[in-house]
């Protein structure tokens, strides 16, 4: 069972990035880390490969400046190797261009299963994994809250508005996972040391047969025209509870005629 996990390396959400207003894109030039949403996919893939009795977990990532720090985190968790597509021409890529880059890269690995997060923490477009599945000509099951593999099929509990559906799907397939599908492990010291020497195959768009007009800002069919401060809600009264603050809530609800 060979599994690819799509990993996005993003600016640290604890130190939110700024918008580049001229380009209308997020500044991603600082240090990047693995998107926390992807740690669930990495863990799930490692467990599925192990349960299948072997096989490799390969990471695929597109990032600026040959960034590998986020990939090293996932390699330290136990992934075997990584493919990184990085090039100046990729800056400003939209979700569809990103999916094209990932699809071409994944075809080289030829996995049985591709796992991705439902959406990234920084851009949260949430369309890339399904675009990827369509480009590969594969079925997809999104919003998985539980995954198992039996008889060459992936079985998924897929979230719905009212609960979940049990879905089964033959391989190869793309599955997107929600946070909570599994508890991600912390990389061990041994894992961190081993990750330093694991192979990261660095490619450019031309290596995978895409030309510069198809990717990056040149291939994006949309642009951000302005970024403005949102009208702020005026924050109201903030009171420290002295034992009777609950009465303020009662009064507030009475004024709204809700009690």
């Amino acid at each position, binding site marked *: 069972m060979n599994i690819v996990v799509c990993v996005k390396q993003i600016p640290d959400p604890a130190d939110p990035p700024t918008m580049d207003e001229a380009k209308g894109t997020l500044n991603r030039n600082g240090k990047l880390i693995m998107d926390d949403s992807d740690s669930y996919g990495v863990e799930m893939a490692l467990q599925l490969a192990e349960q299948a009795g072997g096989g490799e977990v390969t990471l695929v990532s597109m990032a600026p400046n040959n960034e590998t720090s986020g990939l090293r985190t996932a390699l330290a968790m136990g992934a075997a190797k990584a493919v990184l597509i990085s090039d100046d021409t990729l800056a400003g890529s939209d979700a569809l261009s990103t999916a094209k880059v990932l699809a071409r890269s994944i075809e080289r690995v030829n996995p049985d299963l591709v796992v991705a997060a*439902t959406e990234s923490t920084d851009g949260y477009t949430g*369309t890339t994994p399904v675009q990827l599945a369509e480009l590969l000509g594969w079925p997809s099951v999104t919003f998985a809250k539980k995954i198992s593999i039996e008889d060459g099929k992936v079985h998924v509990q897929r979230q719905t508005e009212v609960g979940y559906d049990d*879905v089964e799907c033959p391989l190869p397939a793309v599955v997107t996972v929600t946070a*909570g599908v599994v508890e991600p492990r912390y990389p061990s010291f041994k894992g961190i040391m081993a990750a330093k020497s694991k192979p990261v195959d660095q490619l450019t768009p031309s290596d995978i047969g895409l030309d510069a007009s198809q990717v990056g800002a040149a291939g994006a069919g949309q642009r951000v025209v302005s970024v403005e401060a949102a009208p702020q*809600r005026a924050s*109201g009264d*903030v009171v420290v509870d002295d034992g009777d603050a609950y009465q303020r*809530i009662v009064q507030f609800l009475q004024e709204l005629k809700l009690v």
Partner: protein
Amino acid sequence: MTIDRILVIAESNNGQVLPASLELLTEARSISDKVDAIAWGKDTASLAAEVGSYGAGRLFDVGDIGESLPGPHVASAIAAIVNSENAPSIILAPTTYDCRDIIGRLSVKIDRPVITNVVGLDQEGDAISSSHVLFGGSQIATAQFTGKMPWIFIVRSKTFTAEPSSGQPAEVVGIQAGDLGATANASIVSHHVETQSGPKLDEADVVVSGGRGLGSQEAYSMVEELAELLHGAAGASRAIVDSGWVPYSRQVGQTGKTVKPTVYIACGISGATQHLVGMKGAKNIIAINKDQEAPIFSVADLGIVGDLHQIMPKLIEALKGLS
């Protein structure tokens, strides 16, 4: 490029079009007088009166797709419409699980980008600008398509208000999906409903939500009790859904439901970006949190800094005394 037809994805559940699709039909008819809808399922034709009353002239019927996930079928049918004389200038889809699947596949089939997480549309002549919330609502970005039509937007629910017009039932037009290859091989084996009593989370007038600050799964019963006393619905932050304390169907936020109640009471929720996006539209916000610096207080009309384990029981008792 001139804006002509608009196609709205009319997702339905139990024979009723989702409110989020009705909101989009309402918006579509304010942009163009040529609005079509597309639906799938066993008895799609029965939706013709409803989508017609919201302004759709035609209802494209993909038909019964059995237990397949709808993404590949509906995307293929829309691609066929795009390649016909009925080609829309704009495609509007609600932010649902199935519509995200449909649009992802459609985007590849017709090689067009998608703009997602739309919280507003603004028309100026033949240009459409979409607005988007950034960084938990502190900034609003405006985006436009620069390439060929159709322009595809996935819109968050409650962006527009659904209002029926006096439209006649839509004309039902059958539309076939093309060859789907392996893409349609995922199928639903069984459905599971996690029941919830009281009003629906996204329709309730009062929403009481709990977060990590509750400290334990057991403490969520206070959230439920308070919600029940106020005839409201109980919600949750992503943190406690991910921890398995409550089912996903209660999650409020970016990856959960968008709520716009008269009053939203956040109990032990710090107010992460991903949560604020789902509840900032509430008319009134009350927050209880022990951390005075919690971001939730910056949007609260009434903020109580204190221990919710002290405050909530007193509040519940006081409300019981009043009812």
